[in-house]
């Protein structure tokens, strides 16, 4: 059978039912609260009224569903090589998609669609908003042909299958690993990384434990104040010290265990055009990394790691819609505990050469002002809360304030000191972080869009913010010399716009 997608097409006629079901579902989801109120408040005499109201709602939804069906058209413009979709009753939308930009076409079927015997066809580009480009009711044969036509342009389908077969063929062969992480290195990584996250986790755990402890006591009707004062007496500063030491020990232990589970027997194997990574204690995870797909390469190191001569590397890949749902974390590939030689080898593999740092830009001192201001506001909020909740001996908390001040000021100071933006013709490198000092490396042609921002009170001082949008996330540099930033932006735009290289 010959199908003609050149003229605007409607969905299959039964699509009205799908449109009706969608609209009705949306309506119920939006109005469930008032509907429930009406149902419970109404007296029995008014049931007729409710029934009539319900009927009116159904009729209205049917009309909307029909209009949605009428106004939903799609066609394939062969001349311009684009797929055009128009929809909307009152708010009208027209979406144009260049065929070469289509990454995936998915054909799905929900329960309602199964009953009626239609399918939905979703088109995925690297852009966002999957729901935007979805045909909700289409015959299976038509869907398959349309899918074929949409993917005809370019050979994306083949490229995907090729990649998959590569995984299968190579996971069995025993190539020599090019990086292998030993147990001692894993141990070193365990004791030096992820402090912040683990401490936050432990604190929330401790707070919930303390709360439930208190709750248990109040249910046993023990006089709460005696327990509280007993607790506070025993928990003098000495015991606080022991508590902190215990906490530290626990943090280290958890981190070591986690590192071992995640990165046990970490191996990186060089293949023709990609890197295979195998790791994991319980579940062996096998990932294939294509250097072209990496958007941001980064390595980070803190003070202890510097002394132990290890560093962590991260490769961030483009995240498509599908990846977001299924394998959110595998978009970031982590290499734990490599030394600087191994780092350079990996960088050479991914970026083609070891990136040299270009001319640096450092943030203005206004960086400090803004951070100090927000830290002070946070302290103020905590104080007001403490003031209003009846905390008995506030004096107990005063040393904590000094701890907070010391911690925050060193974080702010080192964060400021470590913040740099290096750029040259091949690489943009952003250095940041107070404790874990991270270098994020971006090749300019992988930039998708650039945003600059300047508050009006920064105009006189010529200070502004910069955001580089890549397919693997955004990179921010704040409080930079705005004249220099503008100059760089013009240069990067020039680079992106003249680049012939494929960013993915």
């Amino acid at each position, binding site marked *: 059978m010959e199908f003609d997608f050149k003229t605007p097409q409607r969905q299959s006629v039964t699509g009205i039912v799908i449109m009706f079901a969608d609209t009705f579902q949306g309506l119920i989801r939006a109005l469930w609260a008032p509907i429930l109120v009406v149902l419970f408040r109404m007296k029995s005499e008014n049931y007729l009224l409710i029934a009539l109201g319900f009927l009116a709602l159904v009729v209205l939804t049917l009309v909307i569903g029909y209009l949605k069906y009428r106004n939903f058209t799609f066609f394939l413009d062969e001349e*311009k*090589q*684009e797929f055009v979709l128009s929809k*909307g009753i*009152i*708010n*009208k*939308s*027209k*979406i*144009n*998609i*260049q065929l*070469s*930009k289509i990454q995936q076409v998915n054909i799905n079927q929900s329960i309602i669609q199964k009953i009626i015997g239609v399918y939905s066809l979703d088109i995925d*580009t*690297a*852009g*966002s*908003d999957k729901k*935007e*480009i979805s045909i909700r009711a289409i015959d299976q044969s038509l869907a398959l042909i349309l899918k074929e036509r949409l993917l005809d342009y*370019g050979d994306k389908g083949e490229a995907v299958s090729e990649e998959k077969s590569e995984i299968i063929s190579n996971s069995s062969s025993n190539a020599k690993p090019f990086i292998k992480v030993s147990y001692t290195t894993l141990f070193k990584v365990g004791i030096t990384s992820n402090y912040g996250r683990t401490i936050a986790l432990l604190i929330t755990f401790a707070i919930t434990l303390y709360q439930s402890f208190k709750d248990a006591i109040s249910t046993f009707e023990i006089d709460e104040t005696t327990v509280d004062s007993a607790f506070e007496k025993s928990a003098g500063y000495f015991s606080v010290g022991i508590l902190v030491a215990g906490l530290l020990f626990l943090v280290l232990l958890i981190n070591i265990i986690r590192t071992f589970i995640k990165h046990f027997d970490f191996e990186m194997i060089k293949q023709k055009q990609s890197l295979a990574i195998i790791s994991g204690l319980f579940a062996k995870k096998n990932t294939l990394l294509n250097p072209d797909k990496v958007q941001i390469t980064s390595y980070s190191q803190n003070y202890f790691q510097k002394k132990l001569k290890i560093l962590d590397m991260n490769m961030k890949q*483009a*995240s498509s819609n599908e990846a977001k749902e299924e394998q959110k974390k595998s978009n970031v590939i982590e290499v734990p505990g490599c030394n600087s030689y191994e780092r350079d080898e990996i960088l050479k593999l991914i970026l083609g050469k070891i990136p040299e740092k270009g001319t640096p830009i450092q943030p203005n001192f206004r960086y400090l002002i803004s951070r100090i201001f927000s830290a002070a506001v946070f302290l103020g909020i905590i104080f007001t809360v403490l003031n209003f909740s009846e905390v008995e001996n506030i004096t107990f908390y005063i040393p904590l304030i000094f701890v907070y001040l010391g911690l925050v000021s060193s974080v702010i100071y080192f964060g400021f000191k470590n913040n740099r933006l290096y750029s040259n013709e091949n690489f943009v490198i952003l250095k940041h972080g107070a404790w874990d000092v991270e270098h994020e490396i971006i090749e300019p042609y992988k*930039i*998708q*869009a*650039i*945003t*600059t*921002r*300047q*508050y*009006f009170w920064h105009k006189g001082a010529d200070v502004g913010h910069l*955001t580089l*949008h*890549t*397919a693997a*996330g*955004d990179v921010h540099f704040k409080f930079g010399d705005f004249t220099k930033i*503008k*100059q760089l*932006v*013009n*240069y990067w*735009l*020039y680079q*992106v*716009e003249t*680049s012939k290289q494929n*960013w*993915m």
Partner: protein
Amino acid sequence: MEFTNETIDLDLLPKFEEVHFSSLHKDYIKVVYINIAIVLLIIAIGIGALIYFNEEMQQSLAYSIFGVSYVAFALVLFFSSVASVKRRAYAVREKDILYKRGLLSTTTTMMPFNRIQHVAMHEGAFSRIYNLAQIQIYTAGGSTSDVKISGIEKEKAESIKELLMQKIQNQI
């Protein structure tokens, strides 16, 4: 083979900050007025219902508190929306599209044509009265870099979209 690799003088590159930006169509402010009116109406109905159903609130103190805060909110909403609409502007260059907006800050987003994924055109109910449309441009940079430009004349929006699609096609 002809191969040149001369140093690029950064100061000679086209400067985005010196581009002439065109502001939104003058009728768009009317669409904004309608939207503000609707928002204020809904809030007014909400407050009215709250007072009507709660007898405790039917006293002059509550009336004055609601009244003053409502008027203050309405004024802030009105002036900030009007000011922010006036500060929105866009520019289409040979190889990229720029969009500038922001009330307290000036935010400029630059999207090179060869990184645009797809384009959508939306026509709202009120925008259609004044023959206006919104263009939404998607890149792989995700939702933070997607740009929506409202209040462009429909014909102009159509031609911008046409131009963008043409540029995307020429890339490959």
